[in-house]
């Protein structure tokens, strides 16, 4: 009773607000905007114009129009659609196959008028909730958008800094390369098996070593670590190396611990360059090949290695800066602040880690090594919002499957947080990430609310 009364009142209120006369009734399921086509007691022409039928065949539970337009209020047409007014919430079209199917689809219950289903009118409640959440969203958007302006500003400054630094680095790099060239000459003579000559070189290298060490400090070698030192703890761990498949010598999709030990840890006793597998590791492949031939010169090798490592790091530093400057940080570089940052989310089993523009990884909470879920690929949103989705791919390979990859969906938020992760398909991960950088200029709240309520 009270429900019916409420409905009556509401429809009255509606009529008043739209200024339409109370007595006009549309056929069931017809939206206000199409009302004009359904004139009572006049022949009805299907909306596709294909045929004309007498008005008593509108909503007579038999499909006469190919386009389904004669049965907006019954389930007779396979392609029909039913309009629920949903006063108090937002109006909606549902496929006419959902009319009287025993399931409440319209919050105003109008789709179930003859099925015996007992539906509650929930439009007001839903409307209230939606307004609340829209309000909250609007506030978030507003604040987020302000934060975004800040980010854009900072990004602009950072960009200039980096450009300067790069120029500087490129200069130093050139110097270093020259020195390395000099060293190469020195080294080539080291091939001389005579002990004497060898010692001489050793001495010479001792001097050069000092020189290089100074250079190294200058060029902030640490930058070279960025690529490898994923957890930013200042050390390149085995796990971190393992996650870098580009270092994988036998291309089996994983780096074994032995492989990493053999390779890239200068602190290990193993000679850094004593394997031909390492050619992908530095730009000095030729020297390395040469180097591996003179296995009896272990000591000198170890000193050499640092020279070359310095060169490598410097080069990497340059490359990093170039790379960073080359990144697409969004139309106004608003995503630049994410660079070289990492964000974690802890679930019951794993800690997920998103390092934007770098990589995504997953580490079991209770022991076990980290898994690379993908390296930065590209922006992958739809055309109209390219910067709403990030794609990370070429992660660790899956057995009988693809390499792991992660899609990161960005939504507007005041904070920069990973809010959820899932694995919809095996080895294809989905991550949700909030950041102010995707916040759009807010429309006024009134606009937002109005846009959702047709009355």
């Amino acid at each position, binding site marked *: 009773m009270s429900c019916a009364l409420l409905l009556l009142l509401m429809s009255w209120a509606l009529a008043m607000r739209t200024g339409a006369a109370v007595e006009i009734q549309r056929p069931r399921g017809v939206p206000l905007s199409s009302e004009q086509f359904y004139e009572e007691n006049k022949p009805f022409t299907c909306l596709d114009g294909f045929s004309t039928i007498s008005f008593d065949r509108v909503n007579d539970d038999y499909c006469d129009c190919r386009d389904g337009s004669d049965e907006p209020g019954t389930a007779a047409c*396979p392609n029909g659609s039913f309009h629920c007014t949903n006063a108090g919430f937002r109006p909606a079209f549902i496929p006419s196959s959902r009319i009287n199917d*025993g399931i409440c689809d319209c919050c105003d219950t109008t789709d179930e008028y003859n099925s015996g289903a007992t539906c509650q009118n929930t439009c007001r409640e839903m409307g209230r909730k939606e307004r609340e959440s829209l309000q909250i969203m609007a506030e978030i958007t507003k604040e987020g958008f302000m934060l975004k302006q800040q980010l854009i500003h900072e990004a602009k400054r950072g960009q200039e800094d980096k450009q300067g630094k790069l120029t500087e680095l490129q200069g130093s790099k050139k110097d270093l390369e020259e020195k390395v060239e000099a060293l190469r000459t020195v080294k080539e003579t080291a091939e001389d098996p005579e002990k004497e000559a060898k010692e001489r070189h050793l001495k010479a290298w001792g001097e050069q070593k000092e020189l290089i060490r100074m250079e190294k400090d200058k060029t902030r070698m640490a930058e070279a670590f960025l690529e490898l030192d994923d957890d930013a703890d200042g050390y390149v761990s085995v796990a971190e190396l393992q996650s870098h498949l580009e270092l994988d010598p036998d291309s089996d999709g994983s780096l074994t611990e032995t492989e990493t030990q053999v390779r890239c840890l200068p602190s290990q006793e193993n000679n850094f360059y004593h394997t031909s597998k390492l050619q992908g590791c530095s730009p000095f492949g030729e020297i390395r090949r040469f180097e591996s031939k003179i296995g009896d010169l272990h000591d000198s090798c170890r000193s050499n290695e640092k020279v070359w490592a310095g060169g490598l790091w410097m080069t990497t530093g340059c490359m990093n800066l170039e790379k960073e400057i080359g990144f697409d940080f969004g139309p106004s570089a608003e995503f630049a602040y994410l660079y070289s940052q990492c964000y974690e989310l802890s679930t019951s089993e794993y800690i997920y880690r998103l390092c934007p523009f770098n990589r995504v990884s997953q580490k079991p909470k209770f022991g076990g090594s980290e898994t690379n879920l993908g390296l930065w690929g590209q922006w992958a949103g739809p055309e109209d919002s390219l910067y709403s989705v990030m794609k990370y791919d070429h992660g660790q390979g899956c057995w009988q499957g693809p390499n792991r990859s992660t899609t990161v969906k960005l939504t507007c938020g005041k904070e920069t947080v990973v809010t959820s992760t899932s694995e*919809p398909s095996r080895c294809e991960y989905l991550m949700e990430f909030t950041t102010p950088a995707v916040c759009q200029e807010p429309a006024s709240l009134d606009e937002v609310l109005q846009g959702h309520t047709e009355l």
Partner: protein
Amino acid sequence: MANFIERMCLYLVLVLSVFLSIIQAVDRSNFKTCDQSAFCSRQRAMKPGQSSYRALLETLELSDSHLTVQLLNNNNKVLLLLELYRLQGNMTRVKINELKPVKPRYEVPDVLITDPPTELMSVVAQDEHRVVLSLGGEDWRLILSAQPFRLDIMEGPQVLLSLNSRGLLAFEQLRIRKDTISHKISSTVGSMWDKIKSVFSSKSQTDTKEAGEKEDTEKHDKEKVSEGEEAEEEVDQPGMWEETFKTHADTKPNGPSSISLDFSLPGVEHVYGIPEHADGLRLKNTDGGDPYRLYNLDVFQYELFNPMALYGAVPVLLSHNTHRTMGLFWLNAAETWVDVSSGQGSSEVPQTDVRWISESGIIDVFIMLGPRPNDVFTQYASLTGTQAFPPLSSLAYHQCRWNYNDQEDVSAVDQGFDEHDIPYDFIWLDIEHTDGKRYFTWDNNKFPQPKDMLQGLLDKRRKMVTIVDPHIKVDSSYKIHTEIRSRGYYIKNKDGGDYEGWCWPGNAGYPDFTNPEMRKWWASMFAYGQYEGSMENLYTWNDMNEPSVFNGPEVTMHKDALHGPWEHRDVHNLYGFYVQMATAEGQIQRSGGLERPFVLTRAFFAGSQRYGAVWTGDNAAEWGHLKMSIPMCLSLGLVGISFCGADVGGFFKTPSAELLVRWYQAGAYQPFFRAHAHLDTPRREPWLFGPDNTALIREAVRQRYTLLPYWYLQFYHAQRTGQPVMRPLWVEYPEDIATFSIDDEFLIGRDLLVHPVTDERSSGVTAYLPGNGEVWYDVHTFQRHDGAQNLSIPVTMSSIPVFQRGGSIICRKNRVRRSSSCMENDPYTLYVALDSQGNAEGELYIDDGHTFKHETDKQFIHRRLSFTANSLSSSDLSPDSQFPSASWVEQVNILGAQKPDAVTLTTTDGGESSVEFAFDPDTAVLTLRKPGMNAGVNWTLHLR
């Protein structure tokens, strides 16, 4: 999440890698060839010739129900007892067992629905060489010849079938072992890891090692059987007392026990059946290759066109020629091999010889004499029962994947179907939904509120299936395990301890489903109070019930494991049958006997049709597998199992969008319609391939839903008569030789002919429309075609070539909703396809769709619709039943019609009204607008 499985898999990769590089699909070396199976190779070494058996006619006894006579093996003097039964319905049963076995031999229980009723047999003539018995009728005779023993079944002067005509009857009598060599038997039980390794790593070893091991076992002393002075010395042959395959030893405490018998079918060139094999519909000659093998096995990435055993076994073979269809049902649950050899018999008549070899048990064979295909189906159904009548919703579309990850995932997929307006009825959860592969449990993190989830589905009138496999995690904190263990319900190993094997949960026990007490207990576990989180819209899937044992020989159970007094060897092919039986029983019981169950099984045996649906196992996303789904399901239908389907899209690998669409189109016209995908494959819900493909899939699924009344009717018939739902063409056109080898198209019931597109980038198919004088109507365009022709049909991506037979009336519900339950009260549209005489006939069946009330309370509507002399009428086929249906007739389409002047409707209350109509001269379709009568009443529509 992927990590754990990955680690497991990585291990496998390491050991398998050598092999995978050589063999793409199945690893054949995991499975025995006949040569590697000791009894098969022993038996097959025996060549056709004069039988050593003689029937001792002086021992012949004829009672009311049967005849017995002793058979003597001239060589070893062992006596067998032959029992002959003439069964009601034109069948003969032949049983051969040892007269006095040293211990009982296994006889398969529970498969026959009753002790088959017999008919009187009488001796027509008898002399010292033969006995002639009458099988009824004027000229049906059975001739029993004494020396050598053989049986011939005659119709008049014609031999229909001969038994032992090639002298391949062989019966390895049970015997006491004369010397025992125990050194081989010891040291076979290693650690679990050893076992696992052995499964895989031994692949990489060459056959020479196996051969070497075999030789070891062959070194037995000669053994003498003391059956009398005249008995020849019987020499122990390889593998009689033990056998090793790869690293798996099979101790054979009972020694050799295999049996073999041959059948000759003069005049027969086409034989079918003995599923499950990934092979064409028509059985091939096995000369020079391996026989067809029947041994339920979990075959990883099975190969096409191969006689290798697969997940299920139905030892039923059908023979067919233009005159007669017959069947052979070899009731034996042990490992079985079937040789088929077609060629010229005597006097230039084609002939097919069939030879059955089983590892243990007795010879118990039913000869079904037809003569028409439907007679054979009726005969077989009278022995093993008919297809269970499934809930209507289970004939709709099923969405499955290994795995839907969690409740949110389930809800999102459910939502996805609504958003894309694609109907579905069931969503499935594979093994990952459980708490550590402990069946009957839920992963608390992923599925914390299963009842909320099920209620959410119920609110949309949808359902769910969870997997319940028969391997039980050995874990003292797991109730199911501790109960089974404490009740002693596990299968035992040869030493008497609980048998344990490796499967999804790791170490697992296998309940002894052959034990009726165990089955009763298992059934009780499906009670709502026992299976926590279950509700009435939750159904069950039994996978891995061959049983699959990852570290067992041929990925299954050791044959010397024990089921009470019987070895696993004796019962192997029955295991899956019993698992599904117990599960279906559990579902019936939980509803107090009211609701029909729905249980899908991978393993099966003769009679499995009584318990639910089967699918063709772990196929692959390849065009060849799509094609193969047709003969595989046709073969199953021929042997009673109608509720069959293949994983739509293919289980392994990733289908192209085109393959996926084509598979949906084909699957929509196969009985069990479920999409499924492997864990490692990308998601493939129907809307993930762009709007065009989504629309194509939507349309295919919608076609399925419109035809649900027709499918339901076919299953109603299948339950009542045993006729297959999905049929080879020859079943309906038994005299049309052109149909005998067709397996790229099929019939649903009698009236729909389907030729799915199964080729990549196809621009057309050629469909054979059978029947001289028959007419066929394209169901999409209503275009009319004559029968007995090859019709070229151009196709586009939206084409699903389907034809309705002229002379039929099919009822559809064209208002497709989001699930079949939502369509319950919707009106029907009738498609009346006129034959060349202008007549048509059809039926309509309606009940509540899910209970047994159609059986218990006769609550159903079954009507005949017939169009003759320009009148279409509905009459009651079951006047003593009733069911209130809200459905009515909204439209009638008469195909091949002429334009009438007027149409009137007469109802039983005498009312007469005029019905509006429209006639399309281009298609000759007459459409009657909204006649409006209730589906459950009598009426007549007159065209004038």
